[in-house]
């Protein structure tokens, strides 16, 4: 029986991280160079970890599937990064950021981890500025801030609409410096297909060289997964095309528990779906909600005319518009957290008030803001986003309201980790979006970048030293061990099986099908009947995929279809686990909305009595996964019904 313990120091919340750092074991400089660490993924978490571990003198092997580390999908984050700097003197502090994050996560995250995150946040900004990240500034030369979805203070630092890009370039540059110094070795265009466990400890990986198709073995004293989220299980999401769950999924199969897989975030402001061949969804930064007002027509007849393009939105009189967020949530209005905003949009569209030809869109209108602030101000704030919208939709948002609809964006669930960010497999760590730890059932805007960098720059480098201090006498791990042979053979066999399938359909066909099942039954709202049905459908799909997929090309060459097939195989299995998790959680919280559990006015209804825990799933060979609980104890924050009214 696995007992899940976070192992945060037993001192008051605010002192825990200091207490931990004071007590944790260190590795001396002359020993660090003898220790190998594998870091998989080069997004904000992975690149910042690789850079910092390299600076400390460890021997780092860094892996990414892209051609260069700078392309990892953190680069697409638009809005900003939170930090409790209180530069605006508007009442922010560490406790408030901690509290907002716990509340925003609907009380399903761990107090100790979240408090640490909030307390580290100011250091991140200091470091990024020192690296040369060109954050927005005021005319006086100091850093600018803005408020961001779900917060009543201005604590978000930003670099136009490209904050993720600038932060990632900072981390990538720091990592490049270590590559030059020889402490980090980069392995690009590699898919990590298995984790190698030797005597119960994570000791290496099996990777496929995407250019040659070669199956390669790499060993280390510890393995860090920074492989991001699994939103692509829905096929259409705002993730990059290559984002995948496979390294995390192989960790799950090697004994790491997967926590809260059903907690997925649907972002309220994305460009609506246009057609069958659509390959991905594009996010429009949430910062747009600072000045844009969201509405649908008050009359269904108007909505119908808008859908048929017989009417233009500008022609709808003010009195015939329903600014439903302002109506339902007067205190927060258009700035309610993402889960609330997304559900409200779905509710209006389901009721028949949706616009766009599909009926699956609402308006995000800037006409008031342009009147009030002038076109130049709006252009300075959102110019690049407006341009992107116009390019994709071929419509001018300065004149006509934007059309938006929710889309899958982020996954709060992930590998279970303790206070040290270690999974249940000793020596296997998980950082950034890849783990489950900080955002509970819903993530607040501008908190993903904060978490990725906190984990990579400031947390993991400390916590991993405690583990490695016991490894200083372990010589380099030979990749000739039977465990490596075995893992490599399993990978080779599975690839050969995939390639040998004499089916008729492309990988995308199955991925699209999976996406439709997940979106329909395990998307913005869920119910028992639908989820039960989804389990059956996913089971059928798994069988169809095993016999029906067709993969052209060879095993020993550049073969993108083969890469996709591996990933989709894992996504199908993950889909099953997500549905199980959603089915078992008989409450609504954050991004997980079970229709059976809602208040009279259709808000999420938690069940704290029974579900104040993290559901961490253990893989069982040829059997249903077993759930373990980590009870969540709230000693500082009082659990309350989340209200933004």
């Amino acid at each position: 029986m696995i007992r899940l313990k976070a192992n945060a120091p037993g001192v008051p919340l605010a002192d825990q991280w200091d207490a931990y750092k004071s007590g944790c074991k260190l590795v001396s400089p002359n020993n660090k160079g003898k220790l190998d660490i594998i870091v998989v993924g080069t997004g904000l978490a992975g690149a910042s970890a690789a850079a910092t571990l390299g600076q400390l003198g460890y021997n780092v092997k860094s892996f990414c599937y892209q051609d260069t580390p700078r392309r990892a999908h953190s680069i697409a984050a638009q809005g900003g990064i939170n930090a409790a700097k209180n530069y605006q003197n508007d009442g922010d502090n560490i406790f408030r950021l901690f509290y907002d994050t716990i509340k925003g996560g609907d009380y399903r995250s761990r107090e100790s981890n979240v408090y640490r995150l909030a307390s580290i946040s100011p250091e991140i900004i200091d470091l990024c500025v020192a690296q040369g990240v060109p954050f927005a500034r005021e005319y006086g030369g100091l850093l600018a801030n803005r408020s961001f979805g779900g917060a009543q203070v201005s604590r978000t630092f930003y670099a136009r609409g490209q904050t993720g890009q600038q932060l990632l370039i900072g981390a990538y540059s720091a990592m490049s410096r270590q590559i030059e110094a020889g402490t980090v070795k980069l392995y690009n265009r590699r898919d990590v297909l298995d984790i190698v466990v030797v005597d119960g400890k994570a000791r290496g990986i099996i990777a496929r060289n995407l250019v040659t198709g070669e199956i390669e073995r790499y060993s280390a004293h510890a393995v860090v997964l920074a492989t991001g989220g699994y939103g692509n299980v829905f096929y259409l999401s705002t993730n990059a095309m290559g984002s995948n769950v496979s390294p995390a999924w192989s960790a799950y199969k090697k004994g790491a528990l997967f926590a809260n897989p059903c907690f997925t975030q649907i972002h309220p402001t994305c460009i609506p779906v246009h057609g069958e061949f659509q390959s991905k969804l594009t996010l429009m930064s949430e910062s747009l909600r600072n000045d844009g007002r969201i509405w649908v027509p008050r009359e269904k007849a108007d909505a119908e005319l808008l859908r048929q393009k017989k009417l233009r939105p500008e022609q709808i009189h003010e009195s015939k518009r329903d600014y439903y967020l302002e109506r339902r949530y007067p205190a927060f209005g258009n700035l309610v957290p993402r889960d609330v905003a997304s559900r409200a949009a779905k509710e209006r569209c389901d009721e028949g008030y949706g616009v766009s030809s599909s009926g699956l869109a609402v308006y995000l209108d800037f006409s008031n803001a342009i009147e009030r602030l002038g076109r130049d101000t709006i252009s300075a704030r959102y110019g690049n986003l407006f341009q992107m919208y116009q390019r994709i939709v071929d419509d001018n948002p300065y004149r006509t309201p934007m059309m938006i609809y929710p889309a899958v964006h982020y996954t709060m669930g992930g590998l279970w980790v303790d206070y040290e960010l270690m999974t249940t497999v000793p020596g296997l760590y998980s950082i950034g979006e890849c783990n489950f730890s900080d955002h509970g059932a819903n993530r607040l805007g501008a908190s993903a970048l904060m978490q990725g960098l906190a984990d990579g720059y400031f947390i993991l480098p400390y916590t991993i030293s405690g583990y490695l201090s016991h490894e200083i006498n372990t010589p380099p791990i030979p990749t000739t061990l039977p465990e490596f042979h075995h893992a490599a053979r399993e990978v080779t066999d599975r690839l050969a099986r995939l390639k040998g399938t004499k089916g008729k359909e492309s990988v995308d066909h199955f991925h699209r099908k999976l996406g439709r099942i997940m979106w329909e039954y395990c998307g913005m709202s869920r119910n028992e009947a639908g989820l039960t049905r989804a389990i059956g459908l996913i089971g059928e799909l798994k069988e169809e995929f095993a016999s029906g997929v067709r993969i052209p090309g060879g095993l020993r060459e550049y073969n993108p279809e083969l890469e996709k097939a591996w990933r989709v195989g894992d996504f199908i299995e993950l889909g099953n686990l997500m549905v199980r998790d959603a089915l078992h959680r008989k409450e609504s919280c954050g991004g997980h909305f079970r229709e059976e559990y809602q208040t009279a006015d259709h808000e999420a209804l938690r069940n704290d009595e029974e579900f104040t825990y993290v559901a961490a799933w253990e893989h069982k060979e040829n059997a249903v996964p077993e759930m373990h609980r980590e009870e969540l104890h709230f000693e500082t924050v009082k659990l309350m019904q989340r209200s933004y009214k």
Partner: protein
Amino acid sequence: MKFTLKIWRQKNADDKGGMVAYKVDEVSPDSSFFEMLDQLNQQLIGKGEDPVAFDHDCREGICGTCSLYINGRPHGPLRGTTTCQLHMRVFRDGQTIYVEPWRCGAFPVVKDLIVDRSALDKIIQAGGYISINSGGVPDANTIPIPRQKADAAFDAAACIGCGACVAACPNASAMLFVGAKVSHLALLPQGRIEAERRVQQMVIAMDRLGFGFCSNTYACQAECPKEIKIANIARLNREFLAAKLAAEKEKDIGFTL
């Protein structure tokens, strides 16, 4: 919409390669260029043929993975647009579209339309950073930076590392790429400290990796999907010259950095 595509096919780095014609129809004008290529690939897979390999990832114009000459122009006909943000409504129904990989000695072809751009990483590794470690840095507001300077640094830092500037240049020069990074860091007080060393190391790396020189054709600026300005090359030249002169002066007084 219907299109005739003439696409460069090359099995691997050693293969000679050549143009192959394909037809694709029932393309939605709202499809992106890559969604059109996806459609073609679905067709090819259906026939049991090898699909066209191309680099792409975020498909929202920021990761810099995508490339391609489309009708001879890096990232296609639109100004300030990456290939992934190019939509088929831009083309004429029935048009023939030529699609080729970047052509540059420093970017060898991997397969079909995919090239190896790791030379750009190597330039950054040579000095495209501020040499600090994670920790022990001053409070972020300790050094105020004039907003105009910060904005100019941002404009240069917006580079996505796609290599279009190199692909557009008749000399396959990487001066815009290098100029953008040198400018980004040289404009900020944090980056000034090692500006002289940085510019020299990056220029040496650029030369060593086989990129050409700049002869002021301005093609890079015209084709850069992030519209990075050629003024950054001028700044690169100034920084380089100043660094060289400073180095000479230091030699005279018997002091080297």
